[in-house]
């Protein structure tokens, strides 16, 4: 989320290593399973 915020984008643009790490983390199955959209699907399914 930090990377999605305007403040985060501004801070991260000077840190290639951190950007690379974030890119690696973003593709992990656990990250994909816990996105806002996925959680919304869970909420809708449970309602």
């Amino acid at each position, binding site marked *: 989320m930090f990377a999605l*915020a*305007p403040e985060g984008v501004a801070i991260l643009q000077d840190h290639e290593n951190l950007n690379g790490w974030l890119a690696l983390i973003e593709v992990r199955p656990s990250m994909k399973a816990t996105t806002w*959209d996925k*959680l919304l699907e869970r909420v809708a399914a449970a309602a």
Partner: protein
Amino acid sequence: MTSKMVVHGIPGSPYVRAALLTLEEKGADYEFAAMAPGALKQHPHLSRHPFGRIPAFEHDGWMLYETQAIMRYVDAVVPGPRLQPEEPRAAARMNQLMGITDWYIMPQVSARSPEIASSRRASIGRSMKTRLSRLSPTRRSASPRSDGCSTVMPGWRGTRSASPICCSRRNSQCSRWRRKAWRYCRTTRT
């Protein structure tokens, strides 16, 4: 010791997501109990987390709160490769980074959000209360519902939360989060 675990929280909260990520990484069987933003300072959530924050965690009726405590507990009790390094210096570095995130980054990010203002919080709280009062007692106690929070991201909870920085109304990123917040409110509406 891998019976079902429950995470109580609001989609969009980075702290809730941290707990969920740990469960996912460990391959644990868990349930996500979604809450409405206005339910944090009310019962039954206060019985789970006396400070009225998220996430709250439940394992066979045993309750735990504080994100890092939850993450470390899950890592300890769920079988599988450990998520935390055993080498002391590596573990210390991990702890340092977690501390930096919690104490320096997130408050800075949240503090710059003009949407995080006490008046707004009060307004949302009133809206939630009105909405909840319309529900039947059974429904109210079982699953608090939300409404009227279309301009604030679910999960927003003040200075320590990492709200995706609902920012200036001119900001497209903000608009994206608003849309998601609205969708969340809609899915949790009665």
